[in-house]
């Protein structure tokens, strides 16, 4: 029974769905059996899937080869030129961490807000988070001259009696990212348990798969007791993930903001990074979900209304990011700091003007098209915009990292930076690594949360029950629930 006051959705499809309720109804989904049948059907591998996996592994091998070459030859092959000692690796690290944030926003924050449009896209987004963090976590290690010593960042008792420097933002990063990865993957797995039980209980399943799913489902039996504790645990994990997502990218921003470098040393960096992260992640969600809903025949689960609501969120975060860009400009001018002013002038008119132009066009100008409802409801346009957002956000990090380091206080230090083939190969490898995990995931486990979709499908009833809301604004019993409301 729904317990939250909310307007009753109209019987006919509304043209402008409310982003809060997100028009949660799935009119083409009639019963629980249909949900099981259609979502489980997406698990059968196809030729296109094998080709996609092959391409992903190929890109991964390119990245691995480049890394091997770099380990053999030293970090010099990666195009670092003092004082620009951070380049593509750190840019790509921040890019992938950012991608993960939208997944947590959709799966945890929107869960707490009871946003209906989250239900059918959150599983993809949450898996995207886990794989994006797995990808991001590689880059600080790739950036080490001796990557096999990475564990020195972790505080552990050792014979040298030395410990990490706890006032260093790099150690904060280690704690933040390890916590983020652990909690995100736990959150993903806990949400999967009831769905794995559905896979386990199918007829005509091979004994080996049944055994694997039996182990993974932890013997889940759908009892009222299990659901009661599950709902509570899921709620608390969402409540932990919400501030976590804000803290992780704030900590990543401190890697920059704690330094005195022009363009970095500013208090706006934490919220600016968090908004940018969510914005970039929304782009990646569209990049993933739009082809998936087409290839898997799930357009009646991830409807245009869902995309419309998610596009509004992308538009909102684009406006926040745009506001942060303008604030940076204002602060540089208002501070009266000559170095800061010179740096920001260099960003626009200096050697990296083209990177700034890409950034502002992709992140501020093109997303304004999402004010137009027709474009928000056009999957092809959203797919195109998602690419420009991904490109724009990668260049945002480029503009943060490279111009600042190449244009510091002393003019004799000013230099240039040119990524080498090793940088590009490892960048490609990161996309291969991410895609490989994601492709493996979508054919082994459901990309749409079966149990949660069942929550919003009207249950089968023996008698007619009143429809609508009572005098207090609450839904009558036996209506489709608002997602996540059970918790």
């Amino acid at each position, binding site marked *: 029974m729904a317990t939250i006051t909310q307007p009753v959705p109209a019987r006919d499809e509304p043209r402008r769905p409310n982003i809060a309720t997100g028009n949660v109804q799935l009119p083409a989904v009639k019963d629980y059996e249909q949900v099981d049948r259609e979502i489980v059907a997406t698990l059968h591998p196809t030729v296109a899937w094998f080709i996609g996996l092959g391409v992903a592994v190929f890109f991964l091998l390119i990245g691995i080869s480049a890394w091997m070459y770099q380990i053999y030859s030293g970090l010099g092959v990666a195009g670092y030129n003092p004082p620009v000692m951070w380049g593509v690796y750190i840019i790509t690290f921040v890019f992938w961490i950012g991608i993960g944030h939208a997944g947590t926003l959709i799966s945890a924050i929107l869960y707490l807000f009871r946003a209906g449009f989250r239900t059918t896209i959150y599983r993809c987004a949450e898996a995207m988070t886990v794989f994006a963090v797995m990808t991001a976590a590689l880059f600080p290690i790739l950036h080490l001259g001796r990557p096999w010593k990475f564990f020195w960042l972790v505080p552990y008792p050792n014979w040298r009696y030395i410990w990490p420097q706890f*006032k260093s933002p790099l150690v904060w990063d280690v704690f933040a990212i390890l916590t983020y990865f652990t909690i995100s993957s736990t959150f993903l797995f806990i949400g999967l348990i009831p769905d794995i039980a559905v896979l386990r209980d199918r007829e005509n399943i091979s004994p080996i798969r049944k055994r694997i799913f039996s182990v993974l489902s932890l013997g889940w*039996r759908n009892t009222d007791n299990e659901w009661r504790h599950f709902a509570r645990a899921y709620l608390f994990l969402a409540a*932990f993930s919400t501030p976590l997502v804000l803290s992780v990218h704030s900590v990543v921003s401190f890697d920059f903001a704690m330094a005195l470098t022009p363009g970095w040393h500013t208090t706006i960096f934490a919220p600016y990074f968090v908004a940018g992260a969510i914005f970039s992640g929304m782009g990646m969600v569209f990049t993933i979900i739009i082809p998936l809903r087409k290839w898997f025949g799930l357009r009646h689960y991830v409807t245009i209304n869902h995309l419309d609501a998610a596009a509004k969120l992308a538009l909102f975060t684009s406006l926040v990011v745009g506001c942060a860009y303008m604030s940076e400009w204002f602060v540089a001018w208002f501070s009266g700091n000559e170095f800061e002013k010179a740096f920001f002038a260099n960003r626009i008119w200096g050697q990296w003007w083209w990177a700034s132009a890409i950034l502002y066009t992709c992140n501020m100008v093109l997303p304004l098209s999402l004010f137009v409802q027709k474009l928000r409801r056009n999957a092809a346009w959203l797919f195109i915009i998602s690419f420009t957002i991904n490109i724009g956000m990668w260049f945002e990090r480029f503009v943060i990292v490279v111009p600042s380091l190449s244009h510091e206080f002393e003019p004799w230090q000013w230099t240039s930076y040119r990524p080498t083939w090793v940088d590009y190969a490892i960048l490609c490898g990161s996309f291969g690594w991410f895609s490989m995990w994601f492709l493996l995931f979508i054919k082994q486990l459901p990309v749409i949360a079966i149990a949660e979709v069942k929550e919003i499908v009207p249950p089968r009833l023996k008698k007619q029950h009143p429809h609508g809301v009572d005098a207090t604004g609450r839904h009558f019993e036996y209506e489709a629930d608002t997602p996540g409301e059970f918790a």
Partner: protein
Amino acid sequence: MRGVLGAFRELDAAVSAIEALKEKNVGAIRVYTPTPRHELEEAIGAPPSPVRRFTLIGGLLGVTFGYWIAIWVSDYWPLVVGGKPIASWVPYTVFGFEVMVLIGGLSTVVGLLINSRIPRLTMMVGYDPRFSHGDYGIWVECPPEKARTAEDLLREHGAVEVRRER
């Protein structure tokens, strides 16, 4: 453990059966449902989940450990940075917070596992795979002399299948 299992196709039928069984006090009830429903929750009337206590205790232990490890290490291996105190609570709040989330989150999962009695390695009496898909099940744990009453109640409220199990 012996009792009676009733399988229902409809949610309202299952809810009315639970209410009737509770009214007659036939025995302990366990409900199987493919997705959580408030109607079932209210009919069963179970107390709030104690998982929250695990979360609270884990979170408090985590925040304590996070601050402690940062302060202890700094005292043990003192490095003065920017003239700031050796044990600086402001940057160490990052560790306090992150470890609170980490231990609090993992404790929540432990609370879920302990209270739900999972991982479960054995079969559960009364469970049927159809309860993962679309049907509702009511398992009534009762002595043989009350089994007949339970069966009658389950059938009366629309169970599509009723069987005794042990």
